[in-house]
């Protein structure tokens, strides 16, 4: 957004200020590959300063509180900023402290996350010497960032242990609060088949209540138990605490936002993008990218006092690694669930929707280059932010 706005706004009229608590930018889609040694730490981090326009002011500080009624942001470094317009992009973070016993004695010893750089690297280290046993992947509760990542993790784990000739020593189980492998029926069916082919077990309708560290068990609210030797956890996802301190969020600190205009429900001069919103679109990088085009148009309209006409449709587009150098691709929005077909050119591809192919895997691996060199610099990709139905079809058999 900063790079887009820097080009569009007259520097004599506008001061652009960006506040970030971290000087390092992480390529978060790459965290998935760290535990399996496919990427190393240096592949996923770069200094943020490389990507910011020179005439924007970059402040490294956490946020103490936003006071939207006074158009102010109070920073942890003591500074108070006033704003004409505010874009909130504070994202989501994992909260292992929300589940009793999750970040207890076994945290980062036998229980790991892979949504932080620390967790993913600690798990990589653990895998080096692990001799096998019960690998349980548990999703604590929805919504989570990148809902396909847990499935990708399982597919990559299956492949990883096969290549190390120890797949027969590892029992892999997904334990999910959902009633299937995924939320959307057609994709859930396809992905469920995949899991079956790979011998990955699934326990559904499991809402975790606590972790028994001494007995190596996770226990649901209705007292179902699952034992583990290694627990890979996707803990509760929440917006940052500063949003709660500012009284701007819902029960998970996500900010109520207009699903089409991306203006906050509470304040006309506050816009929200990405995981920080309470929208029902996926919490995924592709969503934030598509939202950026919409938000940019609407922010310029707001500046000019015009109606906000650009409308976000919930578009998401995710590559799904399926192991063994292959991958799937899904493309969907608020209204339309992921469907099979070809993408982006109907009938041609080169990517296949909801179907495993080598090209999809190459797309995922190639995406890192686009990310560092195009997306983050605010350059446009030849891709419409709105989803299109061309090239897609609805399978004849309805899946329950």
């Amino acid at each position: 957004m900063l790079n887009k706005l820097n080009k569009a706004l007259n520097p004599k009229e506008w001061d652009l200020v960006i506040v970030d608590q971290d000087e390092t930018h992480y390529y978060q889609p790459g965290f998935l590959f760290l535990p399996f040694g496919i990427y190393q730490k240096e592949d996923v981090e770069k200094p943020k300063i490389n990507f910011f326009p020179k005439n924007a002011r970059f402040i490294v500080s956490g946020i103490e509180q936003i006071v939207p009624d006074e158009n102010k942001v109070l920073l942890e470094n003591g500074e108070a900023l006033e704003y004409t317009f505010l874009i909130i992009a504070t994202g989501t973070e994992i909260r292992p402290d929300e589940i009793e016993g999750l970040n207890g004695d076994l945290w980062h010893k036998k229980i790991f996350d892979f949504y932080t750089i620390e967790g993913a690297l600690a798990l990589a280290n653990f895998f080096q010497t692990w001799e096998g046993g019960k690998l349980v992947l548990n999703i604590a509760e929805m919504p989570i960032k990148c809902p396909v990542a847990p499935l990708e993790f399982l597919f990559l784990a299956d492949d990883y242990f096969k290549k190390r000739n120890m797949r027969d020593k590892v029992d892999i189980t997904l334990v999910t609060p959902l009633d299937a492998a995924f939320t959307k029926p057609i994709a859930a069916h396809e992905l469920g088949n995949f899991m079956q082919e790979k011998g990955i077990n699934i326990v559904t309708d499991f809402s975790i209540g606590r972790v028994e560290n001494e007995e190596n068990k996770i226990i649901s609210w209705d007292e179902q138990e699952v034992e583990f030797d290694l627990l890979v956890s996707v803990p509760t996802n929440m917006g940052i605490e500063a949003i709660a301190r500012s009284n701007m969020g819902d029960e998970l600190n996500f900010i109520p936002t207009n699903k089409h205009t991306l203006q906050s429900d509470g304040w006309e001069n506050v816009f929200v993008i990405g995981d920080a919103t309470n929208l029902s679109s996926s919490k995924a990088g592709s969503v934030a990218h598509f939202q950026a085009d919409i938000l940019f148009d609407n922010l310029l309209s707001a500046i000019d006092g015009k109606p906000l006409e650009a409308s976000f449709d919930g578009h998401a587009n995710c590559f799904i690694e399926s192991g063994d150098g292959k991958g799937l691709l899904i493309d969907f929005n608020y209204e339309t669930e992921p469907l099979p077909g070809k993408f982006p050119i109907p009938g041609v591809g080169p990517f296949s929707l909801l179907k495993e192919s080598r090209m999809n895997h190459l797309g995922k691996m190639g995406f890192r280059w686009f990310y560092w060199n195009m997306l983050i610099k605010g350059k446009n990709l030849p891709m419409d932010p709105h989803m299109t139905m061309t090239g897609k079809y609805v399978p004849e058999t309805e899946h329950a």
Partner: protein
Amino acid sequence: MESLTADLNTLSLDKDGHLANREDWSIDLAQQLAYTCEVGELNDRHWEVINFIRAEFENTGDTPPIRRLTKQSGVSIKELYQLFPKGPAKKMAKIAGLPKPKGCI
């Protein structure tokens, strides 16, 4: 007066097995639905939950997530699972005559 007890077989349901028309809902029907999904006799605590989510639905157009419910209604998650065993989110909505909560992805 005709019996208020509706015949469950004649009710129109949506694809998830929840009431298709919210006007069909009644206190008697809620009790019948509770029997069919193994919740049994509804007590005051069940009714607190049902009334809460019906009011929330009126205000927001959606069944509240369990987190909001427990935060605002004073019923703990533990108790919710005792009241509506095995999947309280869906069962509460079904008994309250509301659609299945929208899943976030």
